[in-house]
């Protein structure tokens, strides 16, 4: 064991891929397009460049797995190019089991991600988890795993990161998950610690100096930093300032050759989960961003008069970014609606979003159905009601609905090149027949020959899975429902961001592009329900099915349906 870790450390110097971000256009605040390029070292087994056009998204993992996906689905899924792994679930064992993985790209290999296709980042905590936690210390963070809370020290984190060799690592951040409000003193401590902890991860790797083969001095760990400062704009400014400050003395020596911390930072991360939970923000009238999942229920939905970000959240992000260079990627986790994504692109210029909300929608049986920009003729909802952003497939109205999951997209099977409506390429809407099934005996070839002989030209796409089928799977508690819905929802999110990029890069004049984009965002807000009421109803239905399981379920459900009708 000790030996494998030693070998790992010896490899490190030359193994970091190089992450670059090229901002095609954009200013300090406002919509922007760019590309994030990950170039693996020339001697790596997969000599590939991964190119992600921004704005784009990442998908988080649960216990190291993309939720509801088997590995073959992760590899064949459309749209997934950045996967974030939260390490904390692995703290159940000491040392954490992934650190036993040998070979190059241990994190990719341990979890089965494709290093020619997937950028894999590593954070200690799950950015969507904002539950209350014991306080952090001066040099440790409280992390959560199934066996309880674990203290992770700076040294631990640094060694996990160096051993696992993620493409991108998130520096530890002192975000208080204790009961709010937090004192001025606590905030000050939080930004000081966060800066110091960042500096610790930016310390050069010892072996790098000896590595005569590392021709590129810039091949350092790619570090993203959480923008600390909580709900205080001044604390946020102070934190950003500390990143830009020229370092002297011991501090400078520690991170040599960096002149300031920001030089070693590859990107800025904003975890909205902590802000969503904060009482300070909850007081502002923003039901669509301030609700916590546990308090959501259909009875609580208020009619929503405005959909844009609260000035407060907006101001917080601006306060952090104001003094920082513009050409670094900005990542936001725990967004909760397409509306919020569009506003963050329009008003701030965020480059990467996490897909957690789309996965959660799949968890509770919602098939997303929206499109950006909204095509003409798509606006008329019945009775001038706004359209839902998806379908709650628990609803009985889908029991006989034999069409594919989205109205805004066609199934591959039904798509024609002449149609203006785009095709949804997901595994639910555009399933593809397997090309090379496993043979288990010599004679198995007969089973497959006959199939291919039948239809001389097999269609590219099989008929889509229908809403009626998904409705059935949800009510029978079949896991396949969630697999298909994650595949679909992720593609719909991908299409949203592709739509954004197309508008923003489709006009020679940047101001014109921005005006058109802003107009399309407004139109999107007018057409689609930003209160996301469909998610709340679905969550209630999901709970009903979950709790009704077991003997006598059908009777209980029939009874309930009768009660609803009365």
């Amino acid at each position, binding site marked *: 064991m000790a030996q494998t870790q030693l070998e790992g450390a010896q490899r490190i110097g030359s193994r970091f891929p190089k992450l670059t971000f090229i901002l095609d256009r954009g200013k300090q605040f406002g919509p922007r397009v760019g590309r994030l390029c990950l170039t693996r070292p020339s001697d790596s087994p997969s000599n590939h460049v991964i190119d992600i056009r921004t704005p784009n998204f990442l998908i988080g993992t649960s216990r190291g797995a993309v939720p509801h996906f*088997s590995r*073959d689905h992760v590899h064949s899924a459309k749209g997934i190019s950045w996967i974030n792994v939260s390490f904390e679930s692995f703290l159940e064992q000491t040392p954490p089991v992934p650190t036993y993985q040998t070979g190059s790209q241990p994190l990719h290999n341990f979890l089965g991600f494709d290093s020619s296709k997937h950028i894999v980042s590593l954070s200690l905590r799950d950015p969507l988890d904002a539950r209350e936690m014991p306080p952090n210390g001066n040099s440790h963070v409280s992390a959560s795993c199934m066996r309880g809370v674990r203290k992770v020290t700076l040294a631990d984190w640094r060694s996990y990161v160096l051993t696992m060799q993620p493409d991108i690592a998130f520096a530890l951040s002192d975000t208080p998950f204790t009961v709010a409000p937090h004192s001025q003193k606590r905030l000050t401590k939080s930004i000081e610690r966060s800066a110091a902890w960042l500096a610790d991860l930016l310390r050069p790797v010892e072996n790098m100096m000896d590595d005569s083969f590392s021709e590129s001095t810039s091949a350092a760990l790619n570090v993203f930093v959480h923008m600390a400062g909580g709900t205080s704009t001044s604390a946020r400014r102070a934190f950003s300032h500390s990143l830009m400050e020229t370092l002297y003395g011991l501090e400078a020596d520690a991170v040599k050759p960096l002149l300031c911390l920001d030089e070693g930072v590859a990107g800025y991360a904003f975890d909205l989960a902590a802000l969503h939970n904060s009482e300070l923000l909850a007081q502002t009238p923003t039901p669509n961003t301030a609700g916590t999942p546990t308090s959501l229920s259909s009875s609580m939905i208020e009619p929503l008069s405005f959909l844009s970000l609260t000035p407060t959240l907006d101001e917080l992000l601006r306060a952090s970014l104001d003094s920082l260079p513009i050409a670094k990627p900005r990542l936001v986790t725990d967004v909760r609606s397409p509306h919020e994504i569009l506003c963050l692109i329009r008003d701030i210029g965020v480059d990467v979003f996490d897909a957690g909300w789309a996965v959660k929608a799949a968890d509770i049986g919602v098939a997303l159905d929206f499109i950006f920009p909204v095509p003409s003729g798509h606006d008329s909802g019945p009775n001038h009601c706004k359209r839902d952003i998806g379908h709650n497939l628990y609803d009985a109205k889908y029991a006989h609905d034999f069409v594919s999951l989205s109205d805004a997209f066609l199934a591959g099977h039904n798509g024609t090149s002449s149609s203006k409506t785009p095709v949804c390429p997901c595994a639910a809407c555009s*399933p593809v027949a397997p090309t090379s099934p*496993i043979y288990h*005996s010599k004679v198995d070839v007969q089973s497959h020959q006959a199939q291919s002989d039948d239809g001389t030209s097999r269609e590219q796409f099989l008929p889509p*899975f229908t809403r009626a089928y998904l409705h*059935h799977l949800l009510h029978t508690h079949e896991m396949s429902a969630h*697999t298909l819905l994650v595949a679909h929802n992720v593609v719909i999110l991908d299409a949203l961001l592709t739509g954004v990029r197309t508008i923003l890069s489709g006009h020679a004049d940047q101001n014109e592009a921005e005006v058109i984009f802003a107009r399309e965002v407004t139109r999107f807000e007018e057409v689609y329900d930003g209160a996301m009421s469909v998610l709340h109803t679905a969550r209630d239905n999901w709970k009903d099915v979950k709790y009704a399981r077991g003997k006598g379920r059908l009777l209980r459900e029939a009874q309930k349906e009768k009660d609803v009708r009365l």
Partner: protein
Amino acid sequence: MQFEVIAKCHTTRARVCRMKLAHGITMLPTFMPVATQAAIKGLTPQQVESLGITLILNNTYHLNLRPGIKVLDEVGGAHKFQGWNRNLLTDSGGFQLVSLSKFTNITEDGALFASPFNGEPTMLTPEESISIQHSIGADIIMQLDDVVSSLTVGPRVGEAMHRSVRWLDRCIEQHEKSGRKDKQNLFAIVQGGLDPALRDICLDAMIERKDQVTGYAIGGLSGGEEKGGIKQCADRLPSDRPRYSMGVGFAEDLLVCVALGVDMADCVFPTRTARFGVALTFKGPLNLKLGKHTKSMEPIDKNCPCPTCASGMSRAVLHHIVTIETAGAHALTIHNLVFQARVMGGARDAILEGRFPEYLKSFFFDYFGDTGYPEWCVNALRSVGVDLMQGVDVPVS
């Protein structure tokens, strides 16, 4: 159905057959995974097909409740509903009436049970079972039989057997007049409990009806370790009809059944045990929940072609997610289905190549060499001329 025996084992009664149905060719002997509610747990039909599986089972009882016949009629059957383009088999719904329903009262007319929707008495007749199966549209459908537990003794067993024969006639009549005989194939179910005399009477009656049925299932024997009934049936059933042993899924049971002359079997075991964290291997089942797998960087079986093992997914990763993440269930379900298919595919090759007895011996040695051979397996295989104990030093348990 076109059914052709391609090869026979020189020693045992095992055989390789080619069964052509409306949705393609399935090579036998084969194991049929169970998609109770029109989905193999957690997988998509494309994934299942990619594993080399060409025949799965749906449960009539469940599909009749959800999504219901109306939905299936509207969409044009269960194949289209679930997006499965390969062969499909449905049971009659009778077994679940007995195993799941609160009270079931069997009368000559049919099975009277409490509707799970409203508790009201509902009758499932043989005619209705067939007509539900017509709506589902499976390539192979089953007669409704009068199921009694294999523990039942006394006159009830005989009554159930005789009634099953009478119900078969009603099922045949319903099927004949449906006009679906070209697409759907009716199988009879041989009953008779553990009583060889009763089973013989049942066999006589059902073989008499050979021209009206395309295959035979052997019922009421899945639970026990007594394979005498299966041997008795397989010996007497006509060789130009497929033989289906219902509810058999353990690898050793499967191979014994194949040796006795069985062509098809189904069971929820491999998919269910996957959800509980157990991977099936040629060296016996592997419970990945156990602490000893925590740090194991090995795959379940490095020779296994399933996507889980082929991706190098380690036992450590599986230990971390099984029974917690759905992805853990998917990974093991995929693996276990491929394991079942490999056991049966290996049997097909061995029969074709005239080395099936050796295949049995090496399988049992790998699978049970450490713990000892189950006595019933040794006895059952001796009855078809294979002596597992010959030349090996393995205890019998």
